[in-house]
């Protein structure tokens, strides 16, 4: 029988709100205009020029930020007592069909104490390396979300301890599937895809002890070798 831990106190949503109306289903949400999330103004006051623009669409506030300070801004949103965005709902990226439009990285943040939703976006031009700060140090939920973003778009999250492919296998050669220049059925022919898939050794992902054996070690990809060499660990 396992030891029973002490019971936790119940944390309720909206605990920081005083005299707020109970939440209701949004009706007749306007396309543009509508109530702005107060965090947009707070961000403008706090960070000034790092906030490029804010807009409201379909009831959701979107704030565009400068790429280099995205991590700092999100950390402020998490730590500041008037914001308390403690819940990271999603990290994803959007690539538009027009080639000159930059890729956007999107963070969906929720503040449970204030019952708010905020979308932070930053733009990554395609002619520069696709890199942005990781929020793994702030939210653990970013662990797999950022790995998936890397797998699908090739965006590197600086500061993520273990940025490897998550959904495709590690030696996947066809590219980054969700990019718009990646065709729906893949780049290679079906038989070639099957051949590569069957060649991928399903058990090439074992721990350090196994990898000291020479045969297994030579099969792991370069970035994984570097990661193992630096000794970083996370829930893979």
């Amino acid at each position, binding site marked *: 029988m396992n030891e029973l831990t002490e019971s936790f106190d119940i944390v309720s949503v909206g605990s920081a709100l005083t005299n707020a109306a109970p939440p209701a289903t949004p009706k007749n949400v306007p396309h543009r205009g509508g109530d702005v999330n107060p965090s947009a103004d707070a961000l403008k006051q706090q960070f000034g020029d790092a906030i490029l623009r804010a807009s409201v669409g379909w009831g959701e506030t979107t704030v565009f930020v400068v790429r280099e300070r995205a991590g700092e801004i999100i950390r402020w949103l998490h730590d500041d007592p008037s914001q308390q965005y403690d819940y990271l709902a999603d990290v994803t990226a959007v690539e538009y*069909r027009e080639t000159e439009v930059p890729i956007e990285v999107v963070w969906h943040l929720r503040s449970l104490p204030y019952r708010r939703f905020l979308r932070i976006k930053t733009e990554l031009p395609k002619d520069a390396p696709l890199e942005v700060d990781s929020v793994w140090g702030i939210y653990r939920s970013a662990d797999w979300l950022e790995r998936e973003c890397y797998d699908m778009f090739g965006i590197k999250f600086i500061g993520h301890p273990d940025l490897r492919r998550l959904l495709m296998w590690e030696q996947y050669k066809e590219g980054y*599937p969700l990019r718009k220049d990646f*065709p*729906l*059925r893949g780049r290679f022919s079906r*038989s070639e895809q099957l*051949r590569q898939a*069957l060649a991928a050794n*399903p058990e090439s992902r074992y721990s350090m002890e196994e990898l000291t054996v020479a045969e297994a070690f030579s099969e792991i990809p370069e970035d994984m070798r570097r990661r193992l060499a630096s000794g970083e660990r996370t829930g893979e």
Partner: protein
Amino acid sequence: MGLTARPDSALRRVEYDPQSQDGWVTTRLDFLVNWGRANSLWPMPFGTACCAIEFMATAAADFDLARFGMERMSFSPRQSDVLICAGRVPFKLAPIIRRIWQQMAQPKWSIAMGACASTGNMFDNYAVVQGIDTIIPVDVYVPGCPPRPEGLLYGIQMLQKKVMSERMSDRVLRDEMEPDPATQLYIPPPAIDEISEPFGNSINQTRSTP
């Protein structure tokens, strides 16, 4: 459309010597062996997605699989007879299903349950194998997305009929498939490409513009 010429390795040659007819004893023995095999097929449920839920529903009380002798789901391939691939198989899972198939001992059969296992279904994209018959030999295809339990039971009964029609004198029937050691494919690549091509209206499904 369709396969024009199949290479010899894909044809199953039944070796039957008309001079030496199967005697009464061998046909009775065949019947006995096949009857035992058909009515106690132990499935290896390779369930991946929605079809696995319908497979579970077929195994549950309302559509009982136990009356076919199949309630003992052997999740170890070494102890199973029929691999029921229920669900879509992405390329990452392809070596797994190949390995599971190779771990099963003869006599073994396979059922491709559902449209995804049969042909890849609506997942005509970079990630999904267009039918597990490109990886392992399939005996029965059960269409549906997901097939109703009655559909799966019909497929199982078809397999039972197939098992009953086997003969011990057929020397190549129980031969293991031999993939090409260089590519690990057991069907020639042009054949795989041909059967994986979209056809009909599906060729319009790869456009993201109107």
